[in-house]
């Protein structure tokens, strides 16, 4: 079941992207404004990251429950590989967007990496995504520390889980607020599901911490 879910987590966002973008080859035409190709590729990376992130979160929340056998065993190496794939896609999403903005404006748009909440709605929503990036990078660090302490309950592991859950509202609201494809009804239903999974994960983490 997991291999199928993995394929779907990439395939569905890609199909959604293709339905909006159309023929991607058109974007290499010289008449297309600078940066547009990087922009649409950034969207693709973001959508695929969202799909795989949701899968990773779901598999982790299902771990140790009665539903796990039906879903399939999801070991730590696989968790790490998928997690690093998500991070790579998120970094690609950010890097491509900065490249697009730089090409469009003729200057290096690294200022986008600094969160700004006082200069309008759009900048604030971009900043939410930037915060999500930083949260994800810290959770990777915490995950790496937890990996070294395998088999034991540890603070890094708890931080890894909490940061993963904390990134859900940041990522979801960022993509809902300014994503062209991500405010449609099916994607809204996906967010609702993701939110429910995150709440269950939060509850399980809380219960685990009290034991």
């Amino acid at each position, binding site marked *: 079941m997991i291999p199928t879910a993995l394929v779907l987590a990439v395939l569905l966002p890609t199909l959604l992207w293709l339905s*909006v*973008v*159309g023929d991607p080859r*058109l974007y290499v*035409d*010289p*008449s*297309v*404004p*600078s*940066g*547009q190709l990087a*922009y*649409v590729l950034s969207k693709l990376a973001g959508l695929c990251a969202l799909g795989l992130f949701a899968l990773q979160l779901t598999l982790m929340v299902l771990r140790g429950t009665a539903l796990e056998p039906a879903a399939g065993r999801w070991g730590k190496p696989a968790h790490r590989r998928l997690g690093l794939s998500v991070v790579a896609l998120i970094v690609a999403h950010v890097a491509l967007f900065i490249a*697009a*903005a730089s090409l*469009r*404006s*003729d200057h290096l748009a690294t200022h986008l990496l600094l969160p700004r909440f006082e200069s*309008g*709605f*759009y900048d604030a929503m971009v900043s939410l995504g930037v915060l999500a990036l930083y949260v994800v990078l810290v959770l990777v660090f915490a995950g790496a520390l937890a990996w070294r302490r395998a088999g034991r309950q540890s603070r890094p592991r708890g931080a890894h889980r909490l940061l993963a859950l904390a990134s859900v509202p940041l990522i979801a609201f960022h993509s809902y*607020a*300014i994503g*062209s*494809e991500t*405010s*449609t009804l099916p994607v809204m239903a996906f967010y609702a599901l993701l939110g429910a999974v995150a709440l269950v994960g939060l509850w399980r983490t809380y219960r685990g911490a009290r034991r």
Partner: protein
Amino acid sequence: MTDLHLTSDRATATEMAAIDAAIARCGIDPVIVEEGERLIRGGIHRANERRHGLLPALHALQNSSGWISHGGVNYIAERLGGLVHEIEIDAWRSEVSLASRVLEQGFRGMQLAFGRDAVTQECYLRFFDRAAKAIGENVLETTSPQALRPEPDCLDVGEPGGSPSADGAAVETLPLATTLRRVGDGENVVFVDTRERWEYDEGHIPGAINLRLRDVDEHAAERFADADLVIAYCVKDFRGYEVAKALRGLDVPAAIMTPHGMRGWIAAGLPVAGGEHLSEADGVSAVRRLARTSGAAALAR
């Protein structure tokens, strides 16, 4: 045009000899270096050398045939490995000559003022005519970059660099000044704000309607049945371009503008409606008034 003659794409033997001699005097390797090789082998230093060979080469070309010929410029560009590339790669180096800086700033200034994708070949030709004249008179270093910029009427001659390709679905990029001129001429120009509702409510181009990419369909396209021109925009026109592309697929005459998006509109000092800005009616009046007066031409300058 005074000095620039569009003749042949190939330089004459006399022109080539003069250019070669000028480049050789600069101590530049006479071997033509491919772009890829130049970049991959860390040819920044060599690129910098070649850029310094540009002005002597242009001088030599002017002196040899009396004008800056198209073929001669092609040959110089070939020999020097591409002036524009070199300036873009190497612009931060401290030893860039003042003349190169004037030329570069004039060139960039023209693209910024007119919109990079909208500058026509006529504009470039006039720009280089002026540059060549300044070189010929040996005053390029003391010339203001703005003085190299041609009059905005060059935008009306020929096709812009970002013009649509033959498939008809490509999105045209119009200069802001041209768009305003068309508003002033009484054409039905409809602005479409492609951002989210929250962004639209903060401030938008007066009279613009809010239409997001996911809402573009045949029913939405019917709203533009009477439009002579539909300008789709967002913050930097990433979403604007996508909406314009989708609308063109539905036979709506949609385009985007340069400078791009709401940022370009605001940077040009044009009125904004909604939120803490003007009322819709006041904003529309302000845009029309500006478009009817000399505002569009002033903007382009």
